[in-house]
């Protein structure tokens, strides 16, 4: 005989340790099993798209820093690439390679935080996070050397980067690139076959491939579902065609696959860094930015340009009316769109699994609410 139970609705609300920021879910439970989930956005809506229309093209760069504040460099890169394609600005070779260096360092730093917080949610409170923070602090020192800031760098400009690499940067990066695979082995040895992590994330929150494509998921979330799509390969930009790296994909699309894909992507990023380092060393220092007027006036028209940010397809749709400020600047944030399928991934699982699935999607609220 069926036991008649009543649902309970709980706010996993704006201030909650598992929501990595101010994201709110109105979740309906039957006992402990999730019956319904409604995501609520807007608690960190700072209106970057409206502010873009009131700023010149160069002034908007610091605002893009604050969008996905765990991967500021790739935000700058996506925006600068879009405007450069619109205005037809050519970059010097060295600037392209510096951007690849900095972009891949950002990817490693982002995945370290993503995995750290994901394991926090799995219950390994603070231990793996502090392990991974040790590496992230090294990366932040490198970024500090480059741009003087730990988090929001404002390092890229239209046509290249703002300053050249300081002399002590390349040896420090070379030392980091030499050590990093050892650390990743350490994490994998500590975590990959850990039975608690396997028990809690294997087969949890499965996102099938066609649902992932239909819900426009991108980045590690899409690749974990088995879809081999990476913009650095599929729609290459900058100097990526010259670099060799693989694209790790998962099988089932569950929380463990997303963890595993990010771990392998860190290895591939280290490989890219090695190749880019080798190339930058031969180049003479000096030419790091193309001649671009301060008030760039791209011709009338529009562009939809995308890059592979650590979270997925980060794209800018910029419409220009020939003036000094964009007429419309739409930011396609992967974090927000990866959340579209959250309800389908979570209904039927329990509250503890909701925390893990949400952690495995790796969301940053600045990019979700823009």
């Amino acid at each position, binding site marked *: 005989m069926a036991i008649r139970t009543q649902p309970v609705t709980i706010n996993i609300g704006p201030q909650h340790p598992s929501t990595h920021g101010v994201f709110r879910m109105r979740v309906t439970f039957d006992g402990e099993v999730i019956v319904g989930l409604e995501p609520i956005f807007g608690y960190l809506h700072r209106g970057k798209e409206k502010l873009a229309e009131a700023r010149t093209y160069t002034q908007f760069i610091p605002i893009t820093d604050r969008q996905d504040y765990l991967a500021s460099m790739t935000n700058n890169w996506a925006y600068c690439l879009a405007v450069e394609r619109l205005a037809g600005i050519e970059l010097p070779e060295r600037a392209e390679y510096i951007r690849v260096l900095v972009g891949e360092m950002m990817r490693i730093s982002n995945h370290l935080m993503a995995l750290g917080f994901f394991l926090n949610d799995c219950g390994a409170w603070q231990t793996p996070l502090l392990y991974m923070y040790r590496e992230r602090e090294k990366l932040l020192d490198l970024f500090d050397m480059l741009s003087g800031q730990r988090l929001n760098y404002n390092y890229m400009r239209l046509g290249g980067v703002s300053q050249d690499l300081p002399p002590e940067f390349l040896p420090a990066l070379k030392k980091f690139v030499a050590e990093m695979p050892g650390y990743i082995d350490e994490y994998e040895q500590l975590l990959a076959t850990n039975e608690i992590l396997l028990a809690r994330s294997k087969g949890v929150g499965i996102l099938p491939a066609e649902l992932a494509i239909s819900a426009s998921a991108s980045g590690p979330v899409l690749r974990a579902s088995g879809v081999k799509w990476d913009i650095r390969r599929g729609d290459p930009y900058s100097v990526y065609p010259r670099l060799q790296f693989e694209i790790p994909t998962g099988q089932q699309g569950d929380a463990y696959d997303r963890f595993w894909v990010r771990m392998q992507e860190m290895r591939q990023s280290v490989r890219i860094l090695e190749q880019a380092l080798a190339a930058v060393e031969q180049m003479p220092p000096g030419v790091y930015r193309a001649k671009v007027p301060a008030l760039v006036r791209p011709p009338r028209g529009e562009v939809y340009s995308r890059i592979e940010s650590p979270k997925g397809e980060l794209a800018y*749709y910029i419409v220009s009316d020939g003036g000094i400020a964009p007429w419309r600047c739409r930011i396609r944030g992967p974090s927000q769109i990866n959340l579209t399928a959250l309800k389908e991934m979570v209904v039927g699982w329990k509250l503890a699994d909701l925390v893990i699935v949400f952690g495995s999607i790796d969301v940053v609220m600045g990019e979700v609410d823009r």
Partner: protein
Amino acid sequence: MTQPLSGREVAARIGREIPGAVLLADGLGIWVRPGSVAQVARFLKEAPGLEMDYLNNLTAADYLDYIEVVYHLSSMKHNHSLAMKVQCWGPQEPEVPSVYSVWLGADLQERECYDMFGVRFVGHPNLKRLLFWEGFEGHVLRKEFTG
């Protein structure tokens, strides 16, 4: 390399299936009549040669006398892309049929377009403000909003 489809070819193909749907086409994209967006979307997703199964981006832009809703589509299989645009003229509130039934990814982006531009997406299961709170007047990304 993602190869952008030429708007004219796609317009010709759509013209044969759904006459009168495509108003204008140029090198990069096609402009579709607001009424037949859902039909064209379904056709683009299921047509054998096209199979646009990935909705990259759905947004709108305010050009003072009309609001243009932009769909950037691409295909995972053939790795080609297309821009589909819909222009909503006239003083009354812009209305566009929802493509939620074709691509699930349109859900949050359509709600954001409604919140920011006031474009009503007919057929969306839960069309309400995404980023602002219920009871907030005005649509922020319209040019006349200077709040």
